[in-house]
């Protein structure tokens, strides 16, 4: 079954004097287990598309189904709950709650899901070990490097057992070593656990790792390549 299904998605920004067609009729589906990159020049609509897929913003027109649910029909608090249970997020930077330790950040999302304490802790520790931070569980974000913070963010995104993980330029603020490291971790999670990743990027190294590359220009898909 398709994890994400998008039909005729349009987004027009009226906020500025000129109308901006940020997305101009996008049709797109993602299947379970994909490792897909959305690329394109700055201003092509990558962030806008990811926001739509994550239920963070509403399209002007079109349809978004996630695991079969039409998320545009959900009330605002139902939508928050839907995101909590179905979508993992990794943002560009400063993803984490600064007053919580790495472990607490990962646990936090499971707390919102009301996962029992014991299970929560075990899972958070296991996830942090998976992203190579088993020894930094009690560090607050300010004591972690940018790469480490992004790895905690990935662990947090996975903690809720989402249908897929959305990452908006997750490596934008990282040096090449941390970028490679983060990508390896994501790729491994994808291969071993069949977790679906959809990310936007500028970075050619990230593009190279992706098994599917969707290119946007002026709010339209101009190519959609799958490598096998």
């Amino acid at each position, binding site marked *: 079954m398709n994890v994400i299904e998008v039909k005729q998605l349009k987004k027009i920004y009226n906020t500025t004097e000129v109308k901006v067609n940020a997305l101009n009729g996008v049709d797109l589906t993602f299947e379970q287990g994909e490792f897909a990159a959305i690329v394109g020049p700055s201003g092509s609509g990558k962030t806008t598309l990811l926001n739509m897929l994550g239920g963070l913003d509403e399209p002007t027109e079109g349809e978004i189904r996630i695991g079969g649910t039409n998320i545009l029909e959900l009330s605002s608090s139902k939508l928050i*709950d839907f995101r909590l249970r179905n979508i993992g997020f990794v943002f560009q930077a400063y993803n984490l709650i600064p007053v919580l330790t790495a472990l607490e950040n990962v646990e936090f999302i499971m707390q919102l899901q009301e996962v029992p304490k014991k299970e929560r802790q075990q899972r958070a520790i296991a996830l942090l070990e998976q992203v190579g931070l088993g020894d930094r569980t009690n560090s607050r974000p300010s004591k972690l490097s940018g790469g480490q913070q992004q790895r905690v963010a990935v662990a947090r995104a996975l903690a809720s057992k989402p249908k897929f993980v959305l990452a908006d330029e997750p490596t934008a603020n990282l040096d090449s070593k941390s970028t490679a490291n983060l990508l390896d971790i994501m790729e491994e999670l994808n291969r071993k656990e069949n977790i679906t990743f959809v990310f936007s990027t500028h970075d050619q190294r990230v593009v190279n790792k992706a098994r599917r590359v969707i290119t946007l220009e002026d709010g339209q898909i101009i190519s959609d390549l799958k490598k096998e």
Partner: protein
Amino acid sequence: MRKNLTLAWRNIWRNRKRTIITAASVFFGVLLSTFMTSMQEGTYSKMIDNVVSFYSGYIQIHQNDYWENKTIDYCFTPGNSLLETLKNTPDIVFHVPRLESFTLMSHGNNTKGAALIGIDPPKENHLSKLSHWVVEGNYLKPGDDGILLAVNLAKNLGVEVNDTLVLISQGYHGASAAALFPVRGILKFPSPAMNNMGGYIDLKTAQNFFSVPNQYSSLVLMVSDYSEVNRVKHSLKRDLADSYEIMSWDEMDPLTKNMIDADRSGAYITKGILYTLVGFGIFGTVIMMMAERRKEMGIMVAIGMQRSQLSAILFIETALIGLIGVLAGFAISLPLISYLVFHPIPLTGEAAKAYEEFGFEAAMYFSVQWFIFARQVLIIFILTLVIYVYPLVKTYGMKLTRALHA
């Protein structure tokens, strides 16, 4: 809930300095306000005590219409049902009879009109500590045939202890009343009004003088606590209103009551301004707190935290800062005020004189009633609630895409 509390607690210490400054403003607000309220209440209860103990008692019972006319024709013999009711009202500690009217007092060529109050000497002393104010001569003995005179009146009449005074008045239903009274003692009250007022004689003697055997013009009630006065009054009114007039101290002395009310409203304004300033201080902190954390709050809601929970955390943060301020304020004001209740601050110079003119001992009095403190908690809580409107509106109105890119 516990998680919210933990998050809120950690959040407020992210900017330690700002939290301390904000809590400090609450602290000073609470300190000033409790101190001020405590002093007010202390002073008021002293004023009331004065009125009550020198003169009116907390509650008086009269024959209907006595207070309007204040003549000997409106006196009464307390019936069994009245005495029974007084006995069965638990907050009435005791009651004291008085027989009061107006007389002409003369000595030599001097004649003055003055109040004459017939009292039961030991009972009256129990109520108003009248014997305290005897500066010359002696207090009355039961059945005494002499008179105690207020100091200014005595001066005006030119009498001294052991001189004899002629009293002329009207007795019951126009009967004439005249008699000679040796001066037993001179009374000097702390209040000038009282010093002009009149004379005290024994109750029995007064009843004979006015030809009203076994009758009183008032029963003065002592109530266990000031705060019980209204309750007792209403309960008595319910049982006795048909035959008797029941009046509380504030009805008999509206002047003091008005003075207290006026002072209270003035103080409300001062405290209102004080707490408005404190409120704006907290509000400023909340605004800054939220501006700094816009992106973080966006992320929290994006990953799945309900806006209601986010705003609850912000509320707890505000409330915690307030609570720290309040508790710190109490930590200082409670012991300080408790001490001052038993050790009033003595006044000197002009202030002291002004106090004495109003019939007070020259000292600043304090009160440590629970409501003084409870009220601060309530005010800070209400402030927090009002300020909470801001985070509430902001979190519910927050646009995620904007917040995330803040």
